[in-house]
């Protein structure tokens, strides 16, 4: 085929026009279809994945639930395990006999281990050995959510809780590898025989499932405080919405200097420790 200059220019112009038009209509179609897809509640495709917490888009009145731990109050009763007992009883967390199989939602660790970046040889003795309660940080950008292949864990847009659906968990433990806080536990064996007092109203887990703290989303739905917060007699655990300047959590954060675990990783942990 012989192409003269005029023919070539016509073809090139037409191609460019189609490309531009195609891009525009494609975007428009996607934009039109997005609310429909959201309304019908289908959970497939990359758009749905973005809605599952990988994006920063959140509803307007969304909460950002967070936990504030007042270490000064907690330290006064170093041996206290009220929060741990209450949480583990509420959620049927097994007491494994072999420490290798340990399952934990909330636990304690020495200050110098938790904040090892902050530790130095002249750290006040009382701080060095302060037991620090640890739990899932319900990160703003949870690494565990990004790696989960089945969407068994996701960040809830309405309040920022990093949720788990144990029905969907296939036990690949990617989330455990991704979590920089060690907040997730794996059920290496059937947990049932290791639960002393079974809470009839909460499920247990099975072998091969990962579990972690859920900020007691079930209790929150009933208008209650998380079990650990309610159990803490020293009132060292303060729970609230970071978006609400009047919340207890925000007031507590405004009153004292606070630390978070490994903030440099950019996960945006939402458990704060008051010094």
């Amino acid at each position: 085929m012989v192409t003269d200059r005029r023919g070539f220019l016509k073809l090139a112009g037409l191609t460019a026009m189609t490309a531009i038009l195609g891009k525009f209509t494609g975007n428009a179609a996607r934009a039109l279809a997005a609310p429909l897809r959201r309304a019908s509640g289908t959970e497939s495709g990359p758009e749905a994945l973005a809605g599952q917490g990988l994006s920063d888009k959140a509803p307007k009145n969304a909460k950002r639930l967070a936990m504030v731990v007042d270490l000064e109050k907690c330290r006064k009763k170093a041996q206290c395990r009220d929060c741990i007992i209450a949480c583990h009883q509420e959620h049927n967390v097994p007491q494994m006999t072999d420490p290798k199989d340990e399952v934990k939602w909330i636990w304690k660790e020495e200050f110098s281990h938790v904040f090892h970046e902050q530790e130095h040889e002249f750290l006040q003795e009382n701080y060095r050995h302060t037991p620090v309660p640890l739990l899932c940080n319900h990160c703003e950008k949870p690494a565990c959510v990004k790696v989960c292949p089945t969407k068994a864990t996701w960040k809830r847009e309405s309040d920022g809780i990093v949720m788990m659906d144990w029905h969907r968990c296939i036990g690949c433990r990617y989330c455990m590898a991704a979590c920089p806080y060690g907040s997730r536990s794996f059920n290496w064996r059937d947990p049932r025989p290791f639960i002393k007092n079974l809470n009839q109203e909460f499920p247990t887990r099975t072998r091969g499932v990962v579990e972690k703290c859920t900020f007691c989303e079930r209790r929150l739905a009933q208008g209650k405080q998380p079990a650990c917060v309610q159990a803490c007699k020293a009132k060292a655990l303060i729970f609230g919405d970071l978006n609400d300047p009047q919340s207890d959590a925000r007031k507590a954060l405004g009153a004292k200097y606070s630390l978070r675990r490994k903030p440099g990783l950019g996960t945006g942990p939402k458990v704060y420790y008051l010094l």
Partner: protein
Amino acid sequence: MRIYDAGKIITGLLIFLALVTLPFWFNAVSGKSSHVPDPQIAPDTPRCVRDKDYMKANHMDLLNKWRNQVVRRGERKFMTADGRQFDMSFSRTCLKCHANQQKFCAQCHDYAAVKLYCWDCHVEPGTIKKGSSWR
């Protein structure tokens, strides 16, 4: 035509037939085939969220739907067709009436040999099961 050893062969055939049809005989004699599952719910309970026929055929779909709505979307209220409101909770709504796994679920599920894995995690109502059936 003549069959050699007719007596032995015919006796053998009869024995073979009797053995092959044994399951039918056995059921007819033992009366087990006439057993019909009889699921029982707790007395004095409110009407179910859907009618019996629907539930008989589709309870698994409803449970799936409820699970996804509660666990994944945080929607917990269910409105029945006649305007009654229920908390979408397996443990705290369903199991309050269907309060005995053996007398309710197992009746049909054993009969139809459909294995349940609900009780691997959810606490079986009325009983505390030790160990799960998980592979």
